[in-house]
């Protein structure tokens, strides 16, 4: 009889040891950084109108609802009906959408009048120096156009004679 009892005790001992060993790393799983490296991609640029955040590449339906009825809606069918681009005009800016996998995603925001400023505080008519002050040096410059890339979005700031005269956010398709 003793042999059996020894085995059962040993088995119980092993079970508890193994079970104890399992959760310790499992609880530590919270810090498993194998996958973490990929999640560190930066988010995109965000334009804000009143309370609504407009994220490049995001779903346009909730944003369009939140912004209320647009002043004008323009729809342009691409050739051979391969998707319909839409441009909503609001006071001071225009919002462009593009179909992607059955959903209209936000493809661009174009600032029209000086009254509207970017979340970072840039406005039409500001001097060139404002750009680097607000957005830093990480730009590429071509024919007076400053381009900053952040995540899957791009911010283009057009200048003529050193004065900002157009601001455009665009989503970069992966």
């Amino acid at each position, binding site marked *: 009889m003793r*042999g059996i009892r*020894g*085995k059962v*005790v*040993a*088995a119980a*001992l*092993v*079970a508890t040891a*193994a*079970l104890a*060993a*399992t*959760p310790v*790393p*499992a*609880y*530590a*799983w*919270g*810090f*498993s*950084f*194998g*996958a*973490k*490296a990929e999640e*560190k991609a930066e988010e995109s640029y965000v334009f804000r109108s009143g309370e609504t955040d407009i994220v490049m590449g995001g779903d346009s339906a909730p944003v369009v609802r939140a912004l209320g009825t647009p002043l004008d809606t323009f729809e342009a069918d691409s050739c051979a009906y391969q998707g319909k681009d839409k441009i909503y005009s609001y006071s001071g800016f225009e919002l462009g959408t593009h179909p992607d996998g059955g959903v209209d995603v936000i493809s661009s925001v174009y600032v029209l009048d000086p009254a509207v400023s970017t979340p970072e505080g840039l406005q039409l008519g500001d001097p060139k120096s404002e750009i680097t002050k607000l957005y830093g040096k990480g730009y590429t410059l071509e024919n007076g156009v400053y381009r900053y890339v952040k995540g899957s979005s791009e911010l283009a700031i057009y200048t003529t004679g050193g004065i900002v005269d157009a601001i455009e956010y665009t989503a970069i398709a992966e």
Partner: protein
Amino acid sequence: MLLVSYEFLFFLAVLLALYYLLPGRFQWPLLLAASVLFYLSGGAFAIVFLITTTVTTWFLALRLEAMTERAAARVKELGLSGGEKRAFQAAVKQKKKRVLIAGLILNFGLLAVLKYTNFFLGNVDVLFFGGSGEGPYVDWLLPLGISYYTFQATGYLIDVYHKKIHAQKNLARYALFVSFFPQIVQGPISRFDELAAQLTESRRFDWLTIRLGLMRMLWGFFKKLVAADRIAPAVAVIVQNPDQYQGIYVWIGMFAYMLQMFADFTGGIDIVIGAAQLFGIRLPENFNRPFSSRSLAEFWRRWHMTLMRWLREYIFFPVSTSRASQKLSGAARRFLGKGAGRRAPLYFASVTVWLITGIWHGASWNFVAWGLANCAVLLISQECSPLYRRFCSRFAWTASRGYAAFEVARTYLVFCMIEMFEYYSFDVVFSMFGSMFFGIRPWQFSGELAASLGLSAADWIVVGLSALLMFAVGLAQRDGRSVRERIFALPGWQRFFVIYGLFLAVLVLGVYGQGYDASQFIYNQF
């Protein structure tokens, strides 16, 4: 170059033509050149690590062999015997051990640095940066198949150390063994004595082996393209949103996940083994109908066999008979009695093996937990086996087919539950267990949630039919005869329609080409 790509098929066709046109003595150099080309196509820089592993293991193996021969010659020359001889041999063994350890540390060190630096840095990030992610991290691209060829090369080195085989003097022939292109991607991990000779044999064109090889590849493509890749989106959605998909969806997710993993991994291996067979080279099998296992122990003797064989031969047995485990056994015997004394080396070796298996599968604590969970279940079932055998001998119905089916289902369920450790935290796993059994609600059968899985009704039908076909083929293999022989034994027309039907199924129902990106095999990101 992906196995599932036009480039690979074109590469294979050209190589096949050249292989059988060239005179015999040029055949294996051609294979070597092809393997190097295949490896370079996956990114030029990574070949440096492959060359390092190949050259170091080749060179050290030659050194070991030389030491053994010189020692034997010395013994004969000095006419040593008895104690003196044993002392001299022990001294030589010590020197050889140092050479072996150097080789192992170099190669496994290389693998560890390349594969686990992020894991290590991540933990550093937790300890010193409060897990905020600012800590350093590297994004090295893991060289293709490093986990596989490193094991294969070190296995060769250990075999030479144990004098099981003679070292290969010719570096080129050895390089072919390490880098033979079909198996570099995701194994199987071959032993030197079972593969090296085949590689350098010259062969003449033989339509039967080509046909068998092509058929096996076609079956691999079917499993990968028609079943695995079609179910993949649904699996991804369920696995990534455990909170949304409760109750019945945990079951669907589990079956879908297992189908995808089985079809993806065995499909890939079929393509690899089929491709090698085109050249008359027989690679070791990696699977033996795993889902017919009636216990987890049996499952791990049928799943990824070449990896498990490697771990058993080169880690499990050596560790279990190492001095450390003998000391452990002695200590356990003194304090906890004979039973514990006998088990100590077994547990010590098992935990070591399963830690390594876990960390090999992925550089994160999830996989460590997965490994240990497997280990725990195996050890517990080993401990309870006497009780279990008595239970079986007492009840006759345990020998019935119904009970066998129950055991198969139970093993499948246990394996799936352990798999969950790979993806979820402990509490999520437990909550999913709960919702699996108690969380099934009628509203879950609504179309909307099902539709969100990203698969249309037609997709589910195709996946279901392909799963049935795989199940049928699995059953047909029960009596050991390969299904392919049986197909080739069919009369002309039936054989044509079976093969042509499978070919069309892959061509039409396969998930490939525009709209689907050439998907990676799950197992070749290692």
